[in-house]
């Protein structure tokens, strides 16, 4: 069923009885050409692009829960391509371009809103660093503008410009960045993949891999054995657990990241804002809630909830940046499990097992990467060679000394 304004009118006049489910709920077949493990945004996007761009058929997506129930529903919905390093920026800019055409691609309203992201700086050294970052972005074909204090004040007059320790000196603005509706992204990709014949199998957890002579033959699941010529794993958050079943240890630790939403407020923040002197970022949802977050808790966790100390730290960041946030009441908080890689950058790569491919290590940057991650993983699965924008995301980069340490923090997960 194609969605259109006309369709909405017609359904409104006929009691909305004509809508059909957006995707089927098929039972698994005995075997497929390509099995994608993980029905989050990345897995669904992989299946969608495999079918649409790379002409693959007989594809299944296996999801242990339900579509949109994992990390796809536990992020802060920000999309941006303001990276510095050669290994990262072309990939995230490719993702940004895919976001810009996503709704036409999917015939689905993903509420992509290019409302701009403003990274504030508070010292002269930070201005230099952001100037460099902005120039790197422009050289890679993205957009960036360096704003001075008065330009920032025009956009957000309520910020704490004269904070004694962290006065705002300006900001780096990417106007094409913004937000997208996280659920709709997963649903849109699921619907698009389903329309192209992909079987989306929910409540089907992968419990093991059948590997003979170094080649993967299929996956063991809670709904029985499913054969496959190629298996792609895109289960960020649980990567270590799933890949351990294939005998692999990964350069990844699982950490919990918390996020917060206030009660609905009148429109006050029309873009995305980040604090440069602490870890705090905020945007306002279309329902009016301020959506914000900060650092990971910093210890290994699979708990999907964090501790009070980080709540306090995030709140302090918010108070330093925009003191009026202290009047808002928190409506909800949640935690999501991140694949924190050793250098803060992801992996899209083959594995030592023939036919088994891995996508993960997204740290807390997975949502914005969804379209390009799917596209590049599909490229790798279909053609057995990396997409030009994802060549740096190799699993062996630590062995080669080719880390992609965007923050310059060193090779330890809880520093990123």
């Amino acid at each position, binding site marked *: 069923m194609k969605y259109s304004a006309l369709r909405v009118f017609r359904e409104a006049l006929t009691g909305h009885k004509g809508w059909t489910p957006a995707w089927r709920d098929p039972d698994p077949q005995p075997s497929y050409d390509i099995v994608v493990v993980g029905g989050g945004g990345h897995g669904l996007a992989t299946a969608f692009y495999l079918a649409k761009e790379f002409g693959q058929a007989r594809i299944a997506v296996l999801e242990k829960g339900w579509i949109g129930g994992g990390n796809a529903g536990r992020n802060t919905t920000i999309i941006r391509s303001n990276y510095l390093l050669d290994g990262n920026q072309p990939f995230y800019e490719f993702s940004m371009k895919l976001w810009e055409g996503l709704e036409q691609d999917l015939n689905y309203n993903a509420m992509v809103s290019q409302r701009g992201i403003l990274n504030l700086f508070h010292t002269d050294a930070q201005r230099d660093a952001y100037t460099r970052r902005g120039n790197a972005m422009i050289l890679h074909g993205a957009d960036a503008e360096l704003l001075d204090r008065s330009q920032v004040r025009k956009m957000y007059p309520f910020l704490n410009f004269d904070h004694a320790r962290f006065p705002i000196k300006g900001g780096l603005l990417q106007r094409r960045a913004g937000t997208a509706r996280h659920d709709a992204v997963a649903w849109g990709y699921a619907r698009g993949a389903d329309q192209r014949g992909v079987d989306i199998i929910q409540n089907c957890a992968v419990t093991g891999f059948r590997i003979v002579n170094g080649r993967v033959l299929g996956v063991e699941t809670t709904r029985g054995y499913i054969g496959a010529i190629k298996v792609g794993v895109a289960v960020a958050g649980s990567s*270590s657990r799933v890949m351990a079943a294939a005998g692999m*240890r*990964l350069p990844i*630790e699982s950490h919990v990241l918390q996020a917060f939403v206030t009660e609905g407020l009148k429109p006050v923040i029309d873009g995305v804002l980040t604090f440069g002197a602490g870890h705090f970022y905020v945007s306002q949802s279309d329902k009016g809630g301020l959506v914000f977050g900060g650092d990971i808790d910093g210890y*290994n966790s699979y708990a999907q909830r964090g501790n009070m*100390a980080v709540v306090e730290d995030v709140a302090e960041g918010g108070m330093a940046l925009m003191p009026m946030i202290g009047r808002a009441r928190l409506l909800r908080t949640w935690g999501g499990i991140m694949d924190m890689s050793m250098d803060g950058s992801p992996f899209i790569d083959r594995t030592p097992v023939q036919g088994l491919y891995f996508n993960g290590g997204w740290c807390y940057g997975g949502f914005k990467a969804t379209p390009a991650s799917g596209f590049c993983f599909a490229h790798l699965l279909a053609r057995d060679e990396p997409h030009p924008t994802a060549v740096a995301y190799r699993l062996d980069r630590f062995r080669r000394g080719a880390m992609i340490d965007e923050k310059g923090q060193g090779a330890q997960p809880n520093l990123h």
Partner: protein
Amino acid sequence: MLILHPLLGLRDAQEFTYLGDASIIDRPDGLTEPEAFHDYLYLRDNPAGVHKELWFHEQGDRSWLVVTRNTVTHEILGAELARDYARGRGRSR
């Protein structure tokens, strides 16, 4: 989270900084091949469940502890001085 410090009793986990998997106590011999150091530095078991990990009591007595913690529930099951743990595994200190 409260960590039962073997010398100081229950202490808030916020007094500590976290380093990660206690397996890094088992440092390979300096003469082994580089591959062993790659695995030592970068690869982790990252289990969902019981995990032995290194915490540093930075805001306290500055001792290193090996804490046994469940990564699914955040329940802390025990803690011992990293020195004792390392000696137990054959290191001199």
